[in-house]
C-alpha cells in the first residue's frame, strides 16, 4: 500500500517537472548565438536529455533514494541541505498550529454540542462560518497591521529578533514565542473552523446514542458521561479528519511563511518557485508529499489508539 503510493508520488513530481517548457540546456544554447548545433547536441547528450523518459526517471529515482536532489540553481548548495536547515522551523510552526487547532476546536465542538442552541453555540457557529469564508492571508495582513504595527504588541516577521544571540536562554524562548504567535494563530484559523464544526456534529451524533443514556441512567456524573463515554467515541471520526487536514496545513505554510518572512520550508519553496529553481522544487515537492504520507500513517496509528476495536483485529 505504501510502496506504490511512494512510487506514484515520485512519478508525479517527475512529470510536473517535465511540464516545464523548454529544456534546461536552453539557457546556455539559445542565448549563445555562436553555439554550433553539434555543441548543442553534445550538451543534450551530456545531460542525457535524449534518453527516453523512463530511463531518466529510473536514474532520478535511484539518486532520490539516497536523498540526493542535486544542487540549487540559485546558490549551488545541495538541495537536501537547504531543506534540512528550514524543515525544523516549518515542523515547529505546523505542529504548534495542529495542537492549537485540536485543543481549541475540540473544546468548542464539545461545548457547543453539549449546550446546543445556547448563546455560546450560536456565537461559535457564526465564527465557524466566518472562519470558513475568510481569506486567511487577509486576516494575517490585518493582524500584522493592527497588533504588530499600530499597537506594537507583537513582532510581525521572522522567527528571531536581531539581537537574539545576546539574549539569555529564557529571553530567547520568550522572543521566539512572541514571533510565533501570529503565524501559528493565522495558520490554525481555517482548520479550526472545519474541525470545530465537525467535532460538534460528531458529538451531537454520539450524545443521542443509547450507551450515553445508559451511562446517565447509571447515575454517573455528567462530566464523566460527556468526557469518557461520549467524547471518546466522537474522537474516532475526528481522527480520520486529521489525515485530510495535514496537506491543507502544509499548503498553508507556503502562503503564511511568505507573508510573515518566516525562515521555513514554505518560504524556501515560494522563493524557489519565483526563481524557477527546479532541483529545489523537486526536492521540496517530494519531501512535502512524504510528510503528508507520514502524517497519514500517524493518523492511522492514532485511530487504533482511540478505537480498541481496530487494535484487536
Amino acid at each position, binding site marked *: 500500500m505504501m510502496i*506504490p*503510493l511512494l512510487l*506514484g*508520488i515520485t512519478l*508525479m513530481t517527475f512529470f*510536473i517537472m517535465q*511540464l*516545464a*517548457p523548454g529544456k534546461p540546456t536552453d539557457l546556455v544554447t539559445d542565448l549563445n548565438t555562436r553555439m554550433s548545433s553539434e555543441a548543442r547536441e553534445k550538451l543534450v547528450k551530456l545531460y542525457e536529455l535524449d534518453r527516453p523518459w523512463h530511463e531518466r526517471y529510473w536514474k532520478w529515482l535511484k539518486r532520490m533514494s539516497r536523498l540526493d536532489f542535486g544542487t540549487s540553481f540559485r546558490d549551488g548548495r545541495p538541495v537536501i541541505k537547504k531543506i534540512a536547515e528550514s524543515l525544523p522551523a516549518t515542523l515547529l510552526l505546523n505542529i504548534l498550529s495542529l495542537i492549537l487547532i485540536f485543543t481549541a476546536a475540540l473544546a468548542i465542538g464539545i461545548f457547543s454540542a453539549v449546550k446546543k442552541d445556547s448563546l455560546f453555540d450560536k456565537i461559535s457557529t457564526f465564527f465557524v*462560518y*466566518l472562519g*470558513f*469564508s*475568510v*481569506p486567511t*492571508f*487577509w486576516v494575517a*495582513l*490585518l493582524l500584522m*497591521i493592527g497588533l504588530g*504595527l499600530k499597537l506594537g504588541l507583537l513582532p510581525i516577521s521572522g522567527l528571531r529578533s536581531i539581537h537574539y544571540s545576546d539574549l539569555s536562554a529564557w529571553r530567547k524562548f520568550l522572543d521566539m514565542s512572541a514571533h510565533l504567535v501570529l503565524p501559528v494563530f493565522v495558520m490554525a484559523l481555517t482548520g479550526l473552523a472545519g474541525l470545530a464544526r465537525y467535532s460538534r456534529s460528531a458529538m451531537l451524533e454520539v450524545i443521542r446514542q443509547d450507551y450515553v443514556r445508559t451511562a446517565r441512567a447509571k447515575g454517573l456524573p455528567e462530566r464523566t458521561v460527556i468526557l469518557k463515554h461520549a467524547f471518546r467515541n466522537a474522537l474516532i471520526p475526528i481522527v480520520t479528519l486529521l489525515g*485530510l487536514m495535514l*496537506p*491543507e*496545513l*502544509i*499548503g*498553508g505554510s*507556503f*502562503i503564511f511563511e*511568505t507573508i510573515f518572512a518566516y525562515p521555513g520550508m514554505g518560504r524556501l*519553496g*515560494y522563493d524557489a*518557485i*519565483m526563481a*524557477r529553481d527546479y532541483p529545489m*522544487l523537486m526536492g521540496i*515537492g517530494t519531501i*512535502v*508529499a512524504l510528510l*503528508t*504520507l507520514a502524517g*497519514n500513517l500517524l493518523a492511522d496509528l492514532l485511530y487504533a489508539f482511540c478505537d480498541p476495536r481496530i487494535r484487536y483485529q
Partner: protein
Amino acid sequence: MISIYLHRIFRNKLAFAGALLMVILIILALTAPWLAPSHFADQSLIDRLQPPSGKHWMGTDDLGRDVFSRLLWGTRVSLVVAFVAVGIATLFGTLVGLIAGYFGRWTDAVLMRAVDILLCFPTFFLILMVIAFLEPNIVNVMIVIGVTSWTGLARLVRGETLSLRERDFILAARALGASTPRILFVHLLPNVVAPVVVSATLGVGGAILTESALSFLGLGVQPPDPSWGNMLSAGKDYIYFAWWLSVFPGLAILTTVMAFNLLGEGLRDALDPRS
C-alpha cells in the same frame, strides 16, 4: 420534486440569504461596465491615495484609480475564474467517480490510487508548482485550480455509484440491454446529481479563496486586470496609511465566499434525503 427542494431551500433563511447574495453578485458582475463610476484602468495621479469620500466611495489607490470601480470589475474576474475552475473540477470528478464506481476492479483500483497520490500533495503547493512553469494568467489559473481540485468529488461520486450499481433499476437497465454509456449517464448520473451540486457550490467559495491567494502572491491574475487578490497585494504596501486599499477587497472576498458557502450548506440540507 424540484418544487419540494425549492421550498426547502427558501425555508432555510441562511441558504436563502446566500442565494440572494449570489444573484446580486452575478448581476453586479454582468453590469459592472455600466455600474462602475469609471473604468478599472482609469488613472488620475492627482487623486492618488484618497480616503473614501462622496466622489470615491472606497477611496483611490496608488495610481489614483477608483477602488469601488475596480472592486466591481473584480467581481467579474473572481466569479468567472471560480465558475470555470469549478466546472472543470466537477466534470473531471463526476466522470472519474462514475467510471471508478461502476467498473470496479482494476479500473477502480488504478483511479483511486491516482486520487490517493494527488491527495498527498497539498493542493495549494501543487497549484503553485504548476503555475510556476506555465505563465501566471487568468486562463492558466482557472485550468490549474480546476484540474487540481476534483479529487474529493471523485471519491464522493464513486462511493454513491458503488452502492447504486447494486440496485435493481441498474440491473433492470442492464437486462434490457442498455449500453454502458447509457447506464452511466442516463441511469446513474441523475442519482448522483445532488451531492455533485452541493460540492460544486461549496467549491466556488474555495476556488475564489484559492484564486485570491494566488493573485495575492503575484502568481494569479496579473495587473492591470483587477482581481480582489491582486488589489490586496498592491494595497499591502500602503496598508499603514491607506487602510481602505486592504479592507474593502478583503470584505468583498469574505462576503462572496460566505454567500456560496451558505447556499451550499442550505442545498445540502435540502437535498439530503436523510434530513
